[in-house]
């Protein structure tokens, strides 16, 4: 690079590269594969640049169009968003490497996959960098529509039905979120998170807004009572799409919920802000148990993995009740690490399920005819992914589980600790159910179809990523500290940038 780019350029690149790549893929469908891969590598490069920038000179706050916060829209990047951007880049690269081989025959789907996927990627990157609530609404909408369109890509009856339900769910969620934004804007005069964080005080408006936004986002994150749409959607979508949905899309709405909770509502007094985390923790625990039991009952592999996502989402919400006085920091760090590890592992599992589906023509678990020996790479990817999902030691999942347990034990929350452990055991149950069948032979021997190496290796590399996370924890903590996202609301990030603009708005009441 001729001159070292500052953080702002990287942030801009993160949003505009996938956008322009999507348009290019739409314009020139034949070159879609190469454009997609190029975009994926560029995005990874940009993310690493951003991370180096963050580590170098602290959290980033860029005013788009030089119009500072209350008027214009700001892009914010701190430790929390950097880690999730990194996950998106890694999983995105994996899926982009997987997709060309997967869609080799049905070129029609390939033609539409790339533009939709890159627009989804734009929405993800934009969402992690946005600090403006309405901007986040547009990102959510872009995300929801592209995800629904991608789910319906395969065109099968179940896929369409699932996509339809998913579309309505995400539209309803965004509408509720928008309602919350409207209330907050009219209540406190701005839609910027930092300013809102300062101006917000407990009251009817704040509670109503909190309720609406949390309800909308819970619907999109598919936490337990609102999980009904997830399994059919992730189960019936094409493999790379279900990998994206499970690993990335779910995490975006969770990130948004987390950011809102940390920036705006965690500081508030009043009944709802204290009651809500306990409720979320309860729903999370229910999600873990219900999701795992359902996963155990499934006879089809992709549905099993989908229900596993329902369970793993439950883990992410366990941290809310744990943000007590001492171990708050550890709980957030645990959950973030779980999200990161789950992203990589779940993507690996879905991609390997795609490989198995291509190999056997079906994904009935009981008939995985000797897959262990005939398709070793793919199954290893599934196993390593499973190891991280279960939270067995060498993996990132283990680090997350360890920190969560540590937080639970320091605060004496035995119930949560028990749920985490039981969740791990049940996860082992359904993962090893699949592995067990991969070793046995079915009665009628099935001859398998060759699975291209690109598909196998992309799944395997993602799985290795999930395992290596187990050892890479020390590298992540400094990154996570940038901007101290968990310590206090975003207030003090770059307040000086707003000060000089604020002069005018002070004139207003």
């Amino acid at each position: 690079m001729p001159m070292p780019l500052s953080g702002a350029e990287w942030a801009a690149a993160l949003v505009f590269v996938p956008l322009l790549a999507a348009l290019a893929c739409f314009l020139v469908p034949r070159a879609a594969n190469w454009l997609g891969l190029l975009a994926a590598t560029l995005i990874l490069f940009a993310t690493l640049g951003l991370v180096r920038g963050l580590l170098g000179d602290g959290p980033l706050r860029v005013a788009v169009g030089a119009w500072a916060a209350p008027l214009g829209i700001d892009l914010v990047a701190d430790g929390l968003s950097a880690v999730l951007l990194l996950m998106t880049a890694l999983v995105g690269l994996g899926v982009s490497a997987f997709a060309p081989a997967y869609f080799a025959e049905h070129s029609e789907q390939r033609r539409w996959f790339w533009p939709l996927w890159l627009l989804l990627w734009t929405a993800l990157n934009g969402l992690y960098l946005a600090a403006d609530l309405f901007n986040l609404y547009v990102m959510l909408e872009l995300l929801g529509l592209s995800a629904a369109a991608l789910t319906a890509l395969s065109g099968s009856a179940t896929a369409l039905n699932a996509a339809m339900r998913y579309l309505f769910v995400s539209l309803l969620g965004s509408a509720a979120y928008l309602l919350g934004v409207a209330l907050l804007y009219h209540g406190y005069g701005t839609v910027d998170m930092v300013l809102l964080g300062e101006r917000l005080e407990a009251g009817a408006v704040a509670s109503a807004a909190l309720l609406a936004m949390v309800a909308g986002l819970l619907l999109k994150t598919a936490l337990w009572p609102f999980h009904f749409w997830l399994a059919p959607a992730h189960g019936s979508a094409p493999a790379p799409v279900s990998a994206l949905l499970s690993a990335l899309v779910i995490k975006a709405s969770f990130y948004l919920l987390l950011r809102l909770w940390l920036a705006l509502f965690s500081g508030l007094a009043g009944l709802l802000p204290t009651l809500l985390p306990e409720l979320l923790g309860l729903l999370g625990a229910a999600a873990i148990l219900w999701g795992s039991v359902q996963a155990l009952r499934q006879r089809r592999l992709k549905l099993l993995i989908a229900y596993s996502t329902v369970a793993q989402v439950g883990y992410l919400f366990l941290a809310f009740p744990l943000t007590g006085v001492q171990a708050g920091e550890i709980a957030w760090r645990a959950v973030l690490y779980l999200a990161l590890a789950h992203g990589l592992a779940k993507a690996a599992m879905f991609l390997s399920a795609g490989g198995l589906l291509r190999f056997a023509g079906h994904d009935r678990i009981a008939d995985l005819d000797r897959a262990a020996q005939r398709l070793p790479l793919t199954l290893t990817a599934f196993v390593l992914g499973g190891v991280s999902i279960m939270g067995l030691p060498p993996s990132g999942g283990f680090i997350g589980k360890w920190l969560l347990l540590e937080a639970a034990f320091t605060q004496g929350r035995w119930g949560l600790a028990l749920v985490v452990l039981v969740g791990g055991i049940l996860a082992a149950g359904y993962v090893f159910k699949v592995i067990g069948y991969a070793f046995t032979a079915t009665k009628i021997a099935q001859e398998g179809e060759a699975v291209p190496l690109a598909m196998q290796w992309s799944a395997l590399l993602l799985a290795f990523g999930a395992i290596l996370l187990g050892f890479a924890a020390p590298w992540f903590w400094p990154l996570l500290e940038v901007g101290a996202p968990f310590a206090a609301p975003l207030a003090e990030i770059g307040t000086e940038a707003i000060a000089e603009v604020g002069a005018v708005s002070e004139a207003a009441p």
Partner: protein
Amino acid sequence: MTSVLVFALAGVGLIVLGFYALLVQRHLLRKVLAFNVISSGIFLLLAGLARRAPGAEPDPVPQAMVLTGIVVAVAATALALAMIQALRAATGRTWLGDDGDEE
């Protein structure tokens, strides 16, 4: 001033009405209608309260937001309708089947 309140309340009415219809109606086209009603309600709430600003001009920022919202609503509706037609062609029904893992 009261017109702001009236229309804001109307907006709330629309939201709740649309939400009721979204849950109750089975036909997907009706659900799309319900969604549009909800969106209109929210926009009414958002831009209606903008009128509270003293002086001639209402607060432009919510207006811009509502404009964007309307365009997004149109896009969503178009996609939903296309998906309904595709679903109708694929499954012959225009309502959400209970597609548990039946096959």
